[in-house]
């Protein structure tokens, strides 16, 4: 039928147009980075077996800077004082064993600057031998939680450099609930928090070269492939960036991605559940319209 032929031509031109301005243009604009599936294959396999008991003794060195809340070991300094000392707040280690790749973490303890690919990385080498490193890793894994919440993964892996204002998160923690003075409208606690955050961010910007961006809606600003390969190895997507390779596992990345989706694209579940009903409605509408048209055109040809 002639009309269907015309329809086919319109569809073909539309699809060609779409292909040219979307998939094709983007394939030409962005360099292709092949992911490694969080295998960290540039690092040698660890041949020794870690001993958690021995690791516990060795980990005494860690708590000079890091807290381990899971073991009720508090941080020696608060976030702001830590940033003033090191440029950034060192992470709590409760979840390190759960979120970080074992091989990565072992090599990291031996030589943080090289393994993170971040020359000015604040942490010094912290294990004397591969055996020591493996022992500490075994210790960290011994108390790591089985299940990590998305926000916890974000806090650990990203949150000390990247705020997430849609998730109410700042580099020094959640924005606290405070009350303003009813007579003046002044909220001293909020101002204090903002002041502390400001000090932290200034120190962080000095340490990193600039303030790392807020990641509230990064899930819509970058493709999933970009985020995955960037987190796996920042240098692959942004050569020369100050961002360190964090060393998360595939599951750890999935948790981070989940959190980014919660803050940046919260309507996704609603979209997917409502969408099919709306489309179904219009399918019904179209079928009825077809019969109406048939009736109205009856006898016209």
């Amino acid at each position, binding site marked *: 039928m002639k009309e269907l032929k015309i329809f086919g031509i319109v569809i073909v031109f539309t699809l060609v147009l779409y292909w*040219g301005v979307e998939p094709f*243009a983007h394939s030409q604009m962005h360099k292709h980075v092949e992911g490694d599936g969080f295998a960290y294959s540039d690092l040698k396999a660890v041949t020794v077996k870690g001993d958690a008991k021995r690791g516990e003794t060795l980990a005494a060195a860690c708590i000079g800077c890091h807290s381990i809340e899971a073991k009720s070991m508090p941080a020696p300094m608060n976030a702001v004082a830590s940033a003033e000392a090191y440029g950034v707040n060192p992470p709590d280690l409760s979840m390190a064993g759960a979120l970080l790749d074992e091989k990565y973490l072992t090599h990291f303890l031996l030589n943080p600057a090289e393994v993170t690919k971040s020359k000015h990385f604040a942490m010094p080498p912290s294990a004397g031998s591969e055996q020591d490193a493996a022992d500490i890793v075994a210790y960290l894994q011994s108390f790591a939680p089985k299940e990590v919440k998305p926000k916890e993964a974000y806090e650990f892996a990203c949150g000390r450099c990247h705020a997430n204002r849609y998730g109410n998160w700042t580099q020094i923690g959640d924005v606290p609930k405070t009350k303003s003075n009813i007579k003046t409208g002044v909220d001293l606690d909020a101002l204090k928090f903002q002041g502390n955050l400001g000090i932290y961010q200034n120190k962080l910007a000095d340490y990193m070269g600039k303030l790392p961006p807020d990641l509230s809606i990064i899930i819509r600003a970058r493709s999933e492939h970009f985020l995955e390969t960037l987190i796996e190895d920042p240098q692959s997507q942004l050569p020369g960036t100050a961002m360190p390779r964090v060393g998360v596992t595939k599951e750890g990345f999935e948790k981070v991605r989940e959190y980014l989706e919660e803050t940046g694209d919260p309507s996704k579940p609603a*979209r997917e559940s409502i969408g099919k009903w*709306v489309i179904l409605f219009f399918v019904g*509408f*179209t079928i009825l319209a077809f019969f109406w048209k048939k009736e109205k055109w009856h006898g*016209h040809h």
Partner: protein
Amino acid sequence: MAHFDENAKPFSHKWLDERLAVDTLDRVLSTEYWIPKNINFLWAMGMILAATFGLLLVSGIFLLMYYQPNTATAFDSVNYTIMSEVGYGWLWRHIHGVGASVVFLIIYIHMFTGIYYGSYKRGRELIWLSGMLLFVTFSAEAFSGYMLPWGQMSYWAGMVITNLFSGGSLHANGLVEWIRGDYVPGQAFLNRFFMLHVLLLPLAIIGLIVLHFGTLRIPHVNNQDGEEFDFEEAARLYKEGNVKESKVIPFKPVFLSKDVFVMGVYFIAFFYLVFYHFEFAMDPVNFDPANGLKTPTHIYPEWYFLWSYEILRPFSTNIGLIAFAIAQVIFLTLPFLDRSPNVAPASRRGAFKYWFWFMLLDMIVLTFMGKLPPQGIWSTVGLIAALIFMALWIALPFITKNEKKL
């Protein structure tokens, strides 16, 4: 003084007819507004455009209730307040974003339908001209709307496009600053584009839509063969019940029933895009907040502006600006550059057939090149396509003048 029946119940049919002539209006505008029978689904694009404009208007009103035209809060009012806090805010935004993109696809289909069937001449010049004015105002509406989320692409597209008004070697920087209200896009800039987007341009569009409909009424809609026939005679046949022999159908309900069916098919596709495939209409770069200190690696307009952007880009500044200015208005001249008296599908018009398909393909090539980085082979292809575009317009009067009369 007209006669008013004192016994007519207020708001009854009779009461309304005496005061508003509703029967006459209904007859003139719909039940005896005659449309040729010899048409295909492309004749429904006008109603589809009207429906899409309706969707844009309604979704825009909802968005307007929460949007904040302030450089400090605009980005979050869109991306946080509307997307996360307002019930179904995401749905209105996606309808608005997808609608703004899809409306141009339909406009282009509508335009090329008109070009293919020769629906811009012999009494239909004003239909074409008012339609092209609608295209221009829709373009301005789309551009001003694109500024509002105040993302990276809003800011930098605003910077690049307003810069064009410096006129190259004219260095009319005063004009650029006057348009921006500042040296760079800022609060004054955002506020005025907000005003344009939500008030002045929609008013102009609504006015032009009325004009566009008005221009159709007397010359009537064209048909698939460009056939000229006596509408009054055809209407008489139809009213006598010879619907099979008559060459026309009434707008309501016969033409409308087909429009509604085509609209149904369109809405299935439209809402599929809204729910499952909206990325094409919402550029990722615009989800980074505006930052005047950081230029994005690639700055490109939305897809529907790419062909004219590519006419600007491959040339040196001054020539590019002149070519760009010509490209913006050249389609307005189509009814006067086409020297052939034939109103017929392009397939029967000899050389014009090739002109039509070359133009379509050339504009698609320009569109592709407009998005690609202007390097190496791409800039050469872009330059050639831009030159072909110009050459086709120069050739048009000559090839149509020599066209054999049908």
